[in-house]
């Protein structure tokens, strides 16, 4: 294995993107993800790539649309309010079936909100973010190593399924440094016969477009897209199970909330409480099956989130409400402490929710 280096999560995303062959980055600065743009600004010119600080988030996402149309690996990054601005572009990317990588290092909202960590863009990310029927592949890293690995995975999945992949991180994941090994394997990009990269007078023109004015044709496009989404749901689901074999209580958490919860679980186990965790790594597609199976033996679920309770809805849907699902949360840039999670676990036991 290559030597491990200490890197911020934001920097790991940028380096991994270069590693994945991304040579086009468009963005607009916003805390807490600006290190991604700064890293790209420094590195892209040296390797023949393009870094462009756009005049706005909207401009940046449309530049992504352009480069994706030409068949190249391309990305943009922002934080919550900036992602809202990109909403229209995300929908157009989906409507044109273009592969791209978009990073959201979330901060507290709504509105301009604050600059401290949050997970309150879960709905926005997992339900598409813009208008129309569509999904993005949503990846939720819980370490700097995963920031790097999921960036590469994100590009690969985007190309395979002609979709946008979104890295849904948060301020702590972006700002923290951890050791990371960057000797990661990258699958070469597949052929993109649909790309608008010049006919060389040897083929018909390719057209990349999201406008379709004939209703039954647009309906067919939607049906076909959702067929593809079904394949993604069958093939792409990723999650981590932690101490779930004998668990009576199951924590559902992703990203920083999962890191905090692990501390609480370890302490609860020392106290003899049978608690485990399912950590979704793909938020869409959501790991429904593992939650459904868990509901066979779990008496109570606890969704730990930096939001007012968003993923909790997917946990309830996946478990078909066969067991109660409680919320343990902080918002506005606050992070639940291991003690708060532990107390929630202990209260479940006290109230008979583990029997």
């Amino acid at each position, binding site marked *: 294995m290559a030597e491990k280096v*200490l890197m911020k999560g934001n920097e790991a995303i940028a380096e991994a993107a270069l590693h994945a062959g991304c040579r086009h980055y468009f963005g607009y600065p916003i805390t807490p993800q600006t290190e991604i743009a700064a890293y790209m600004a420094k590195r892209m010119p040296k390797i023949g790539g393009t870094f462009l600080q756009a005049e706005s988030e909207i401009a940046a996402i449309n530049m992504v649309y352009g480069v994706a149309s030409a068949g190249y690996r391309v990305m943009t990054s922002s934080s919550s309010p900036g992602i809202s601005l990109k909403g229209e572009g995300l929908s157009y990317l989906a409507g044109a079936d273009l592969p791209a990588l978009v990073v959201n290092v979330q901060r507290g909202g709504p509105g301009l909100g604050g*600059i401290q960590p949050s997970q309150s863009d879960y709905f926005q990310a997992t339900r598409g973010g813009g208008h129309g029927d569509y999904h993005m592949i949503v990846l939720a890293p819980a370490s700097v190593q995963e920031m790097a690995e999921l960036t590469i995975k994100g590009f690969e999945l985007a190309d395979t399924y002609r979709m946008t992949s979104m890295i849904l991180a948060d301020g702590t994941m972006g700002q923290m440094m*951890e*050791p990371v090994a960057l000797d990661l394997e990258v699958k070469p990009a597949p052929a993109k016969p649909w790309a608008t990269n010049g006919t060389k007078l040897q083929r018909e023109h390719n057209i990349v477009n999201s406008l379709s004015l004939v209703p039954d044709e647009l309906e067919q496009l939607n049906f076909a897209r959702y067929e593809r989404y079904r394949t993604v749901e069958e093939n792409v689901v990723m999650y981590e199970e932690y101490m779930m074999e004998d668990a009576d209580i199951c924590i559902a958490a992703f990203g920083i909330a999962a890191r905090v919860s*692990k501390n609480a679980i370890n302490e609860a186990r020392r106290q003899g409480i049978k608690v485990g965790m399912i950590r979704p790594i793909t938020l869409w597609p959501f790991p429904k099956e593992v939650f459904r199976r868990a509901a066979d033996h779990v008496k109570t679920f606890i969704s730990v989130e930096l939001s007012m309770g968003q993923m909790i809805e997917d946990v309830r849907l996946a478990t078909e409400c066969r067991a109660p699902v409680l919320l343990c949360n902080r918002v506005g840039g606050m*992070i639940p402490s*291991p003690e708060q999670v532990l107390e929630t676990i202990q209260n479940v036991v006290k109230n008979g929710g583990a029997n």
Partner: protein
Amino acid sequence: MSTKQMLFSGFGGQGILFAGKFIAYKGLIEEKQVSWLPSYGPEMRGGTASCSVIVSDDPVGSPIVSKPDVLVAMNLPSLDRFEASVAPGGMIFADSTLIERKVARDDVKVFYIPATRLAGENGMPTLANMIIVGKILKELNEFDEDAINAALKKVISAKHADMMEVNLKAMRIGAEN
């Protein structure tokens, strides 16, 4: 199996983040699991600064240090803010040039180091942070110059390689005080 949770605090410009990064790198070189998490705000310079550093034999769970085993306070607001959070039996390292009061708790080990004064007297006014780091390493029995040099190489860019020696010197001063 051991986990050391450390919190470095002071005001912007004192090298708080750098000191934490050095400790994290030293842990990495010694094949420990490490994490480093800064508090971040909208200001570019000045203001208060702190960072959480965890060095552990086990994978690091939460990177947020709320009950530090080791607290570095390089100014009074930092000591006021974090003194109560230190784990019982933990250590507090205070820059006594800038902090006139004593630590009120009696269940922690306290080290008063006139780091800012020592840094000035030794012609290294920007290295009060590393004087304190030297003292920490000494008290933790981790003052190993090979590991220190290896970690310095990681945190000091090649452009500033001439700063290696003076950083080591600062740590030696800290260890001897």
